């Protein structure tokens, strides 16, 4: 009886402790959701103060969006993969191979709508190869499969193109990467146009936000990242979902190839070299967790923006690109350390 009373007292004390840290605990989800946007806003303000005339000018802002346009596609694809606690190292190579196929098909004189669809299809197939390899060949970790295809896809891209650039596409093919939406009807000047690639980013990110948050498949992607055996026990076909995720990641890399074709008017062997690392970095900065199951589409977008603004701002200030590397690296480490701290606070042990 005495021990029961003691237990009751102890419960009461624990309840008190809970009340005290509840405000703190309540803030964490908001910080988790919007903290990264806060960082983005701070960065924009700092850059604006440092470069008041240039940074927020129409020309520079559209420039940033044009620069991040294809990276944002790779990052979104890699993000979905990271949510499943996987990794895709091959997105840069998928983009390069898709770009090379696009260039060859364009040079062969195919009509523009074929040329536009080809890289999307090629990217999707590359992703499918990754997904099938990871599930059917039972690779111990997606790292290995996609490391393999990182070499395979780039090598294939060089083989089919002979390792030389192929240039010159029609305007229709270049539209998504290079097109401009005229805003003079709003009373703006001719130079104040809207890049088509910016609209594309918005549309693609919105569609994938809906997909990940409001569809069953999207929910299952998060569930697999949270606990794959729970997903399996719930009757979810985990392998099928993984194949879908890697295929979509490839598809998004294909969109990246189409944008890049528009921007550079050329298929070239070094396209997307090391861009898989940029994509992973953007996801991590944006709050996606390597342990899987965590992260938001908005966060990834913020991550891409932060990297884009950092590069752009440092370029404007004439800072050496070596410093950019150091800074981006530091931000990654800092972002993940914040993730570690958040796990300490947010999860019961």
């Amino acid at each position: 009886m005495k021990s029961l009373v003691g237990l009751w007292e102890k419960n009461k004390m624990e309840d008190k402790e809970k009340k005290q840290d509840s405000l703190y605990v309540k803030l964490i989800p908001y910080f988790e959701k919007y903290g990264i946007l806060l960082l983005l806003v701070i960065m924009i303000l700092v850059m604006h103060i440092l470069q008041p005339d240039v940074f927020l000018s129409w020309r520079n802002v559209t420039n940033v969006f044009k620069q991040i346009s294809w990276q944002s596609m790779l990052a979104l694809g890699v993000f979905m993969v990271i949510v499943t606690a996987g990794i895709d190292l091959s997105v840069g190579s998928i983009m390069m191979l898709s770009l090379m196929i696009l260039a060859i098909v364009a040079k062969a004189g195919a009509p523009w709508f074929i040329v536009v669809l080809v890289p999307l299809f090629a990217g999707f197939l590359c992703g499918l190869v990754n997904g099938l390899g990871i599930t059917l060949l039972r690779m111990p970790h997606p790292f290995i499969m996609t490391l393999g295809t990182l070499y395979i896809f780039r090598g294939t891209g060089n083989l089919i193109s002979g390792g030389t650039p192929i240039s010159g596409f029609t305007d229709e093919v270049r539209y998504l990467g290079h097109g401009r939406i005229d805003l003079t009807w709003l009373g703006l000047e001719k130079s104040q146009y809207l890049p088509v690639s910016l609209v594309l980013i918005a549309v693609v990110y919105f569609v994938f936000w809906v997909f990940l948050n409001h569809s069953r498949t999207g929910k299952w992607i998060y569930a697999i990242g949270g606990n794959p055996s729970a997903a399996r026990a719930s009757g979810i076909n985990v392998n099928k979902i993984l194949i879908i995720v890697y295929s979509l990641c490839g598809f998004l890399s294909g969109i990246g190839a189409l944008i890049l074709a528009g921007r550079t008017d050329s298929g070239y062997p070094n396209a997307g070299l090391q861009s898989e690392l940029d994509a992973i970095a953007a996801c991590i900065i944006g709050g996606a967790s390597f342990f899987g199951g965590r992260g938001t589409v908005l966060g990834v977008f913020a991550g891409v923006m932060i990297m884009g603004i950092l590069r752009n701002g440092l370029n404007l200030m004439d800072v050496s690109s070596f410093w950019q590397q150091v800074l981006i690296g530091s931000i990654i480490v800092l972002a993940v350390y914040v993730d570690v701290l958040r796990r300490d606070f947010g999860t019961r042990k």
Partner: protein
Amino acid sequence: MTSTNKLLLEAKGITKYFGTITALENVNLKVHEGECLGVVGDNGAGKSTLMKVLSGLYKPSAGALFFEGKEHVLDSPKDSQNLGLEMVYQDLALAGNLPIGENIFLGREPTKNIGFLKFLDFKKIQEMTSAHLEKLKINVKSADQKVEELSGGQRQAVAIARSTAFNAKVVIMDEPTAALAIKEVGKVLDLINKLKSTGVGVIVISHRMDDIFTVCDRVMALFQGTNFAESQLDKTSRDEVIGWIMGKK
């Protein structure tokens, strides 16, 4: 007390070989409506194998399963779920990053159609979750709380709620209190009693005599893959059951 209730699940002569190893030999098991059967046995006695046969994960080498008097061949856990037989796994099988409601309905989420697209119906998930938790008297702050923020006992309660969200008739629980703090064990055992009172047949595998003697109506012991002993709970004692586990009658 329960032998007069309707027979829900019966396993007859279940035998399971793994290569040359005999994991189960001619094992029989019965569960009635609103009854809790405790299954005890030492490590390697065949408890887990038997449960995996019942849930459709393993196919028995010989023997048959009857559900509400009809023979069924189970090809996968989906088949047993469709019959109303649910398993609560020892490792809880919950996704910590998802809220309670989404865990309970994981894989079977209600959706609503907008045009030709199907979207998750979050409102329905929350309403159904709250109603279900209310029915089982499970206290959590809200159905939107993430599972990783819950205590071990609350998680176990969610796992049990999950198994019963789709009109389960038989629930099999593998060591339901093994990972819990002492003060939470009672809550989970209460929940098992609650399930029984709604007419669900419960099978509890446990090493803890306290659990067995708190919630079970009948206890059976497996020893080296065979039925060793079985008794109504009020006709046996802890010492006797412990003896059975070690192979002594």
